[in-house]
């Protein structure tokens, strides 16, 4: 309400100065004064109300602002909370499936281990059959193969090869002569010096042996040994004339063990040599026929008495080896 409004109101009530001709009603002056007073009070009250309304509006506005800000922040926090929860759930899910996958993998590995163990057993059984055939045919004694195997394992172990490889070299070595199953008996058991033609037939046993051992990973080392155990360090061996480290490590080891055992065993054309005499031939062949490093290891084993121990242990384990004792 503006001041003008108030004036209008006052005029409506007609508090204009009195007409001097009209006698004044008693108390009229008091009424005018009261009215003026009332107008002033109303005026002040109005101004006060206006101020309060303005202040209230200001406070309200400020609070509204605070509330909007607060609501915006609350919304963000709620969003973040939902977001974080969603992430945690997803990550937990991923972790769970990862764990399941790993368990599955472990089961698969275990099955593979069992399968590979089965394969190994089958392989070893195959070896024993091959050996039986070779032993009957060649009259090479089971004890010869047993000793060669033990020598090979002792050498490989001394060279610091891992256990699995020592074992693989060992079982693979016993098949080095399986190719001889194709070699005619009269050549194999000849007590005479072989002719060139006969010797080329002998050489064939390395190639046949490799072929007989197929393509399975289990016989990989055995194939290399069968093919290369007559190769020489200086490249003058057969059937391929490989030299040095072209020849597989397993074959280089078997070659020494095989020759040493052949020398120290009785054969159709010769008596058994002493261990000392056999060792001398091996030492003399270092760098020519044999890998000098392996020879050094073999000589060390001999000095430790290992070769004799192996020889007597093998003899003791097979007292009924008829083929061995009856070999010519």
């Amino acid at each position: 309400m503006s001041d003008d409004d108030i004036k209008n109101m006052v005029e409506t009530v007609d508090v204009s100065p009195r007409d001097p001709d009209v006698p004044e009603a008693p108390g009229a002056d008091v009424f005018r004064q009261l009215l003026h007073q009332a107008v002033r009070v109303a005026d002040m009250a109005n101004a006060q109300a206006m101020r309060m309304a303005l202040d209230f509006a200001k406070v309200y506005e400020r609070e509204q602002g605070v509330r909007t800000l607060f609501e915006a922040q609350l919304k963000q926090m709620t969003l973040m909370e939902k977001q974080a929860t969603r992430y945690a759930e997803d990550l937990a899910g991923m972790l769970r499936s990862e764990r399941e996958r790993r368990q599955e993998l472990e089961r698969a590995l275990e099955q593979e281990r069992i399968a590979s163990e089965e394969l190994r057993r089958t392989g070893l059984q195959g070896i024993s059959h091959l050996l039986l055939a070779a032993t009957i045919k060649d009259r090479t004694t089971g004890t010869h193969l047993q000793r060669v195997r033990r020598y090979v394992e002792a050498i490989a172990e001394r060279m610091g090869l891992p256990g699995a490889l020592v074992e693989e070299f060992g079982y693979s070595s016993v098949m080095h002569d399986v190719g001889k199953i194709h070699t005619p008996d009269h050549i194999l058991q000849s007590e005479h010096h072989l002719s060139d033609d006969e010797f080329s037939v002998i050489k064939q046993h390395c190639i046949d042996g490799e072929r007989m051992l197929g393509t399975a990973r289990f016989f990989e080392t055995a194939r290399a040994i069968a093919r290369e155990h007559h190769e020489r360090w200086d490249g003058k061996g057969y059937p391929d004339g490989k030299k040095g480290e072209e020849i597989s490590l397993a074959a280089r080891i078997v070659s020494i063990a095989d020759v040493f055992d052949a020398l120290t065993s009785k054969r159709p054309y010769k008596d058994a040599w002493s261990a000392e005499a056999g060792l001398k031939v091996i030492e003399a062949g270092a760098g020519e026929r044999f890998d000098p490093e392996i020879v050094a290891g073999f000589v060390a084993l001999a000095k430790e008495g290992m070769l004799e121990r192996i020889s007597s242990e093998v003899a003791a384990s097979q007292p009924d080896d008829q083929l061995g004792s009856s070999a010519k």
Partner: protein
Amino acid sequence: MAKLLVADDLVPIRQMVRITLSTQGWTIVEAKNGNEALELVRSEKPDLVLLDVDMGPGPNGFDVCRQIKADDATKDIPVVMLTAHESDSDRAIGFAAGATQYLTKPFGPLELIDTIRGILAHS
């Protein structure tokens, strides 16, 4: 290796997205509002843009998307909206603005990675 731009006004969302996407070997560039996003799209030429809608003052995500699509130099960059606006009409606005994909918050890490992988494989 792909380069991705993430525009969001919330630091924790940007961090979350960055950590998630960096597991894929992608490089992440961050913008905290619409203007910054537009600047970086032009200067960095990312392989993909992730846009929040409400990013405080300046153009919102829809505006940014429209501007990216209006510029010949940037119109082939795929845009993924990443927002708490989940209504169908907001989706429609997003696609009308030229977005390739529309993800709503809260989003999961795999969802985010799979979406982006799918788009990158097609572009």
